[in-house]
């Protein structure tokens, strides 16, 4: 389908943020009417590169060519004029506006709205038909599910006359079924001659839909290949720079006694909205229990209740055979003392104090232990010594315990939190999103550590929105939807389709 000149071409693009060289000499050529994948780990520079193409940042050096002619793109308006549309990872929509208002924002046509709205309504009806993107244009965006909001974003780009559509991590918030629907839409776009650039760190998506793929690593473009000539393993190796194990190697679990359980737990939030509905769970020693689900379906509340930072509105929490729901010990501090480790879902908000140094962060929650104290003051040299041990054992880089937590990359921050919780040798470990924003190399390491802990007879609960992660890590999987457990199944019986349906709230007859 390609004609003489590519739809989008980048020549030796360079971008610095201060001393950080975010994009090094990037060259890229995207053929018209193709779906081109750009893959790389977090922080490899994919989003920066696309922000340059969309005019959000300006490249310090280099050229951008659209359909063979050079363009000066220094703001989003110039990019829109060049026929480039972008669907951002976090949707750029106004929740209180209708679909129609969102779409015309910035291209209203005239000072009065009425005319522009009517014109848009007619034009959208045509676009919806052409690309089979059904959306109720009078619906308020805040009421729509994420899958539909994404369609609104795509329509927004098409309405502005986009010929090249860039999607930044589009499936992060979607169920597998919604992702499949998105891929069908992208296929239709390709058939209609549009060019699609898909930015992702998920190998599965690259293999499923793209024609060509470019791999980025540490700000550089390391390979351009046709998708049909490559496979997941080769791409993963290119992304990381060494061979990695994509699947966790592990033996069968040896589940023993139940360490912690929830009985008929309900939780109402401050507005009286029911966030957890009759949750029953058993977390057993020597087993990893995985909680799958699209984010925002009650997983966070579940974690917070088990971690002792929220109290259930109804129901019991049983720890080592004892009902602790109404005990004075039911708080984050005392639970830690009786052997519960908690790696919070959001390490920036609740896992770390980013402006504290690494050694201060590695004692948070355990700061009143005698080994860290010297009389009434903290014992800095002992704290630093402990931190150095963690850093060595968990291969944290850089190896400086006095560096501020914000100075570490996502993967290394996560290792610091994990080290802190695991090294206290808890009987039960709660882990929220173990590898969110963590690069592939570190993912492998973190997964191995969790398996080792399981094999040492500890109980582990893993909450993750990454379906692949839950499937490969967990021994037993519970799926949450709308505050309830839709079903529980053995990880061996789990397939992506089965879990996907459950994540969308479809009850299946599989109970463990």
């Amino acid at each position, binding site marked *: 389908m390609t004609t003489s000149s590519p739809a989008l071409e980048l020549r030796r693009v360079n971008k610095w*943020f201060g001393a950080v060289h975010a994009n090094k000499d990037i060259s890229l050529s995207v053929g018209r009417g193709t779906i081109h994948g750009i893959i790389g780990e977090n922080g490899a520079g994919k989003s920066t590169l696309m922000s340059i193409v969309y005019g959000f940042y300006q490249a310090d050096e280099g050229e951008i060519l659209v359909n063979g002619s050079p363009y000066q793109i220094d703001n989003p308006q110039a990019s*829109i004029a060049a026929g480039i549309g972008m669907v951002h990872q976090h949707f*750029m929509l*106004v929740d*209180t*506006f209708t679909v129609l208002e969102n779409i015309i924002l*910035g291209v*209203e046509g005239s*000072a009065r709205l009425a005319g522009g709205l009517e014109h848009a309504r007619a034009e959208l009806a045509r676009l919806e038909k052409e690309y089979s993107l059904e959306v109720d244009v009078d619906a308020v965006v805040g009421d729509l599910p994420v899958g539909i909001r994404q369609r609104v974003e795509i329509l927004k780009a098409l309405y502005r006359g986009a010929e090249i559509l860039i999607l930044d991590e589009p499936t992060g918030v979607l169920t597998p079924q919604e992702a499949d629907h998105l891929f069908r839409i992208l296929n239709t776009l390709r058939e209609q001659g549009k060019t699609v650039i898909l930015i992702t760190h998920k190998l599965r998506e690259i293999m499923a839909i793209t024609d060509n793929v470019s791999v980025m690593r540490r700000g550089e473009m390391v390979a351009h290949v046709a998708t049909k000539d490559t496979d997941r393993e080769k791409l993963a190796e290119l992304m990381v720079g060494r061979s990695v194990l994509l699947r966790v190697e592990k033996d069968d679990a040896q589940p023993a006694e139940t360490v912690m359980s929830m009985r008929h737990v309900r939780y109402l939030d401050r507005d009286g909205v029911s966030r957890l509905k009759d949750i029953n769970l058993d977390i057993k020693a020597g087993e990893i229990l995985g909680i799958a689900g699209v984010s925002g379906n009650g997983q966070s509340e579940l974690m917070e209740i088990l971690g002792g930072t929220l109290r259930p509105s109804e129901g019991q929490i049983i720890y080592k055979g004892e009902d602790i729901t109404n005990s004075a010990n039911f708080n984050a501090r005392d639970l830690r003392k009786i052997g519960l480790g908690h790696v919070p879902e959001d390490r920036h908000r609740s896992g770390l104090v980013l402006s504290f140094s690494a050694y201060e962060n590695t004692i948070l929650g355990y700061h009143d232990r005698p080994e860290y104290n010297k009389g009434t003051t903290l014992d800095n040299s002992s704290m630093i010594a402990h931190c150095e041990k963690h850093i060595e054992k968990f291969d944290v880089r850089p190896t400086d315990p006095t560096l501020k937590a914000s100075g570490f990359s996502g993967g290394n921050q996560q290792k610091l939190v994990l080290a802190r919780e695991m090294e206290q040798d808890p009987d039960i470990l709660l882990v929220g999103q173990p590898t969110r924003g963590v690069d592939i190399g570190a993912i492998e390491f973190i997964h191995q550590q969790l398996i080792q802990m399981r094999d040492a007879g500890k109980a582990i609960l893993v909450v993750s929105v990454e379906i692949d992660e839950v499937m490969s890590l967990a021994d037993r999987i519970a799926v949450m939807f709308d505050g309830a457990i839709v079903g529980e199944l053995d990880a061996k019986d789990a397939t992506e389709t089965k879990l996907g349906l459950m994540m969308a709230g479809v009850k299946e007859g599989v109970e463990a």
Partner: protein
Amino acid sequence: MEYFEIFVLLMDATLRVATPLVLAAMAGMFSERSGIVDIGLEGKMLGAAFAAAAVAYVTGSAWLGLLGGIAVSMALSGLHAYACVTHNGNQVVSGMAINIVVAGLTPTLAFAWFRQGGQTPALTGDDRFSSLTLPFAEAVRDIPVIGYTYAELISGHNILVYIAAAAVPICAYILYRTRFGLRVRAVGENPHAVDTAGIVVSHLRYQALMVTGFLCGIAGSYLSTAHGAAFIRDMTAGKGYLALAALIFGKWRPVPTMFACLLFAFTDALQARLQGVDLPLVGAIPVQFIQALPYVLTVLLLAGFVGKAIPPKAIGEPYIKER
């Protein structure tokens, strides 16, 4: 006097008190809908009141005074924009700073220029806005109810009262039916969406704050050149804050906000009338208690009866492009 006449006179007073509140609340609406907290309404009004009285006295024209008031208010609004939009400063601090600076500067300048103890000289004749008598007002006065209401309540106000009345539908139209309004509402909810749609966030917020300055200027000028006849130290007496409260009570929407202003103004008019009056059962209430009535009502309304007031989502946060 008949109860009906008392009621009409009470409403008449309500309109006079409500005028600056309505104008300031509409002003605040543009700022806050664009995502900028405007606690500086008070200072802008006070600055405008001083400038209007000073210019009107020197030039002998109330209209030039109004222009002076608007200019000062817009300049202060520009200062607020410079601090909060250009330099991503804290919006509450910037607003409070404006209030404090203006409260100190106005009596100082008044003293330096006019030597009358921090006031401007009294305005007379064309120096201030006088009452307008609408057509046929006197002719229909004797018609019961309708005629009397027209002559007493509708007619006989100065031009700025009518401007305030017109401001509400005009602001509502601009906010909901024009491109500018759509963009202002969008930038207060999600400035990232506005930026990616190819609109420059800072320009838009500057524009919204200029509208705020303009309306606030009229509100301040009304106080010293229409309602009163001179600038007096601290003559806004919390009206800017009251307008802000009305804006929240009205959930940042023009018409409900106007009604909130009318309610606050009504309690104010009522307290003026209740002073020294023997009430059944309780007798005469000390004047201080009655004067506190509008403020007590404000606190009660804001604490309990607003329902869920959802502010513009991005309010108070400077827009910084993330990496």
